[in-house]
């Protein structure tokens, strides 16, 4: 940690050839309104200081005045690419507090949509990753496949991005009759397209040169900074909440926790690609076996949590997402804290990016897959 506190006097900077560059808040590759103050020597990055807060909307504070039903839709607006998983975190926390046992059907549907969300998020990430490295075509290919998932979401949940499909105790509506067919179609389609992803980018020598050995993060760093999700697992940090603290249908389905040891950009890239295969496997196992039953457990109209503290973790597309609720027995939480994966993943950037080139920073940021609203909340 000592090298984080860079207390070098300002004169030191003036004598060497270092200069500052403000990357952001408006910049094509900061994926939102992130501002990075870079100290650069030529093109070599000496220091990265992330400045956040440009889209802070005080969601946690807003939660304190909302009822538990209303809180759910706010989490859509955090990590909008894994909104369903975020929703589920709040719902699971409430269900855990109220000790509601949700029907099996709800669990299965939630898990399927979780994995679809993860796929959609990774598809968008894949497209954007290519675009950040200059292969703009991959962006459109990623979006083409994501569009199918979005159609599934729109038909079943009523929205493409901010779905708000979960409610405490179950789901908002039952799945649409077309849901299973569409999902199966998508899985079949995407199984043919995912190898193309590899063919277009992973096999490309330029892409390999841009990612292999770039932005190395050790397992120790990943643990120390709390880097979770595919980024952490690419460094060998076994942190998959679906395996460590299972929820939903995950204990029952067979899937592998993707673990890599390289810890460089390519490992993070590959981890996500492999995770997409795993997600497809999970969906395939569940989609034919959606049990009949209710789509909601009976809940009171006004939900009041018992006094106490409740914590629920889920695995979003970016990593370990936690909801921590302190309840004083009222219909809104006394305090609510979100542990968002993007926040920890962002602040390891300085450690990882030092000494690499300016162009590498873009690749590194891309492989950490930042979603700014998740970080700012």
């Amino acid at each position, binding site marked *: 940690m000592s090298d984080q506190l860079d207390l070098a006097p300002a004169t030191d900077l003036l004598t060497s050839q270092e200069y500052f*560059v403000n990357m952001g808040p408006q910049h094509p590759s900061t994926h939102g309104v992130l501002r990075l103050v870079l100290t650069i020597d030529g093109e070599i990055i000496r220091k990265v200081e992330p400045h956040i807060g440009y889209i802070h909307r005080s969601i946690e504070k807003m939660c304190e005045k909302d009822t538990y039903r209303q809180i759910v839709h706010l989490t859509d607006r955090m990590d909008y690419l894994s909104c369903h998983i975020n929703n589920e975190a709040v719902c699971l926390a409430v269900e855990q507090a109220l000790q509601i046992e949700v029907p099996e059907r709800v669990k299965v549907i939630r898990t399927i949509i979780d994995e679809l969300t993860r796929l959609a998020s990774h598809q968008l990430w894949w497209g954007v990753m290519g675009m950040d490295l200059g*292969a703009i075509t991959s962006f459109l290919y990623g979006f083409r496949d994501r569009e199918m998932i979005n159609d599934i979401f729109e038909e079943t949940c009523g929205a493409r991005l901010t779905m708000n499909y979960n409610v405490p105790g179950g789901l908002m509506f039952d799945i649409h009759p077309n849901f299973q067919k569409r999902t199966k179609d998508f899985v079949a389609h995407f199984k043919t397209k995912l190898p193309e992803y590899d063919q277009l980018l992973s096999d490309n020598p*330029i892409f390999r040169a*841009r990612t292999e050995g770039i932005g190395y993060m050790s397992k120790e760093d990943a643990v120390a900074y709390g880097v979770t999700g595919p980024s952490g697992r690419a460094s060998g940090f076994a942190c998959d909440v679906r395996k460590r603290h299972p929820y939903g249908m995950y204990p029952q389905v067979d899937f592998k926790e993707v673990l890599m040891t390289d810890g460089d950009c390519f490992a993070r890239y590959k981890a996500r690609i492999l995770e997409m295969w795993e997600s497809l496997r999970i969906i395939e196992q569940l989609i034919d076996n959606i049990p009949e039953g209710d789509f909601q457990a009976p809940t009171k109209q006004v939900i009041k949590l018992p006094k106490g503290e409740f914590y629920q973790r889920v695995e979003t597309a970016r990593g370990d997402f936690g909801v921590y609720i302190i309840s004083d027995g009222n219909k809104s939480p006394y305090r609510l804290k979100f542990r968002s994966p993007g926040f920890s993943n962002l602040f390891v950037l300085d450690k990882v990016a030092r000494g690499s080139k300016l162009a590498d920073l873009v690749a590194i940021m891309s492989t950490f897959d930042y979603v700014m609203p998740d970080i700012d909340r």
Partner: protein
Amino acid sequence: MYDFTTLVQSIGNFLHGQFSPGVATALEWTLVILVYLALYAILGLVLVYVERRVCAFFQLRLGPNRVGWAGTAQTVADALKLLLKEPVTVNKADKLLYNLAPFIITLAALTVISLVPFAKGLQAFDINIGLLFIVAVSSLGVVGILLAGWSSNNKYALIGAMRSGAQIVSYELSVGLSLLTMVLLTGTLQLSTIIETQANGWWIFKGHVPAIIAFFLYLTASIAEINRGPFDLPEAESELTAGFHTEYSGLKFAFFFLAEFVNMFTVAAIATTVFLGGWMPFHLGDWAGFNAVMDFVPPILWFFLKVSAVIFLMMWFKWTFPRLRIDQLLKLEWKYLMPLNLMNLVFTAILVYLGWHG
């Protein structure tokens, strides 16, 4: 075979008949300048449209398809928009250099197309060192880029300019060497003569393996020299927003934009001239009937067909590959392109010495 020499000469004779020699020469020059300026603008507009359309099809999109027939007037509309835009100048920018930079780039691009032989006799400036002159003039554009980057008073622009400087200075070598390989085969630097030597077959066919290698080396190096993807580091949008022309707007930006696309045309045109037989039609051995049909297609069409093919190849490269990093770019040049080029050159020299060429 169509020949434009007589047409061009008759225009010249007509002018000289009507006016005194000095005025006639001046008129001739003005005519040539106007034609080339128009060509420059039209080439730019057409290429921008083609690029957008082709890139859209690569990306499963439609591309511009509203303004005019199938969107053909889209670039005209865009050009008008750029003309009407307010020319924003950065505070503390070095005004003189800031305004000079687009002109240097345009001048370099414009000078190079004056050497391109579009068809027999349709060439403005046919000097005996044509290829050398092209290499010389195309190296001037970098000054414009460097000045633009520096005078914008913007760090991104400066980084872009620095990248561009390193890139162009090193890739010039490969461009020159790969063209030199072909000069060994053709035995001349004059563009019109180079085409004449290909009357019995294009160099890429009759030049054996070295010509093919040289073709791809030339294509790679020259794409890098004109800052086009995947070598578009000076304007890498994901890193440097827009690189050296970050601070340019309106007409001045349009100059950079046009020059970029016209450079693309020039590269394709030179590749066509040197490797693909220029305006020579495609002949297949002794098939007289087939050859006659090929001869029927006007040479200027042949030229533009070949150029479009090369441009399409360049677009295919750009819309498939990720961008390189600056050190990888230089490594590519010094570790791969240069040694390969030198090997190829020696190989070709042996070939020529043994008399196995053409």
